[in-house]
């Protein structure tokens, strides 16, 4: 069975032929498109290391069959930084030491970008922790992660205010 997909990956249209409907989005990205930023931790939806944005929403790439996503817009960690440098969430993770080994970090950052777009956590650390609970960190960098997300929330809010002014 040969299936042709058209995907917008990090702003670039890609025509992708796959020969097997079993391929997950995570395997497609890592094994066929050389985008190894999204990590495979558990491969079962339990750790969040594979988090990417699909049509602007954070999801677990390991549980999504690629074939179901024809026409989707996918953003991975590789597509986050802009021409003028790191995304505010990336910068905040560095500033607040939101990691140790870094394995969970692409997933944490993509999840945080999704969380900030959802807009349900505000500046409440408790809500940030709760809404980031789909991302595990074996190094236990949670404190820095929470601070980074709160800091990025402030930065993005300030930018939004400047843009509005």
């Amino acid at each position: 069975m040969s299936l042709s997909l058209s995907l917008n990956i990090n702003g670039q249209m890609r025509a992708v032929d796959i020969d097997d409907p079993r391929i997950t989005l995570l395997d497609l990205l890592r094994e066929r498109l050389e985008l190894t930023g999204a990590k495979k931790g558990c491969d079962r939806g339990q750790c969040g290391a594979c988090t990417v944005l699909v049509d602007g929403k954070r999801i677990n790439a390991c549980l999504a069959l690629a074939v179901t996503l024809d026409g989707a817009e996918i953003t991975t960690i590789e597509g986050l930084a802009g021409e003028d440098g790191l995304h505010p969430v990336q910068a905040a993770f560095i500033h607040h030491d939101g990691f140790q080994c870094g394995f969970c970090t692409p997933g944490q950052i993509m999840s945080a970008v999704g969380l900030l777009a959802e807009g349900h956590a505000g500046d409440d650390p408790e809500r940030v922790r709760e809404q980031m609970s789909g991302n595990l960190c074996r190094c236990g960098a949670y404190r820095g992660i929470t601070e980074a997300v709160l800091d990025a929330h402030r930065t993005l809010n300030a930018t939004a205010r400047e843009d509005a002014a």
Partner: protein
Amino acid sequence: MNRFDYIRPASVAEAVAAATQPGSAYLAGGTNLVDLMKGGALRPDCLVDISRLPGLDRIEWLADGGLRIGALVRNADLAHDALVQARFPAVSEALLSGASAQLRNVATLGGNLLQQTRCPYFYDTASACNRRAPGSGCDALQGENRSHAVLGWSDHCIATHPSDLCVPLVALDAVIEVQGPQGSRGIPLETLHPLPGDTPHLETMLSPGELITAVRIPAEAIAVAGHARYLKVRERTSFAFALVSAAAGLELDGGVIRKARLALGGVAARPWRARVAEAALEGGPATAEAFARAAEAALADARPSGDNAFKIELARRILIRALQEALAGTPEQRPALPASPFAPPSGARHVA
């Protein structure tokens, strides 16, 4: 994962026709099905992708005041719908206490109702499991069964149904709309999941090919909106299945309970409506003694199925706590930790 064919039907009729073929399975968000296929516990020959079927992703208010939710509405969208939150706050809270933000963005209403048990032996193809392989036995009976059922189980299967969403939905008398080869029909959610008896492999009342198209919540259920909670005890604060959970809704007339809606989760193979406990409360005062009596009544038939006698007392306590919280009133702002019995009063932090 086994090899399978993949089709994406354009209409409900096409989907039903395809899924009526033996070996076919509907694929919605895939967060449960793909997981089970990776481990080999389920091996469908053909996946019928319903995720893009038109018209099934709407939240509609009916002329009679009831709610109709399309089967493909994502868990996150349902939970954050402002009117759903206002009129059915326990539904919203239950959804937000389940899984993770990533999974809730993908998981659908229909898939949530039909998700499989989390019994580890069901997932492990090397284990005996009557639910997965009829007649093979049940390795949970003598195995790790701390989280298994205390109500409605049999010696053939002691699994629980893991959905959070289903618990408030049964308390609110939700009805499922299904479309099958024989046409459409409505099924009370309370009867969707049969108790195991000696046929635990018959997991739902749906016939082959039947598709859930929507869930309806009747208008009467809005009457408990001001006094409704969902509480869930888990092994960790967030992103874990319920050990025991409870939905409670009260309609009060002064200090007297006019109507009570109660259901338990994590205790049986179906979301467990606690009708005896409701009857014990209705017409009486909303007091601590009444709540304790109701909890006794709700668990009167409970028996441990293994290393889980603690769940019976835990269920009593969580039911009482849910009733107390419901009596105090639905919180104006959604708690930071949805459904957590450890969530401190508003303002205080769970972690300093």
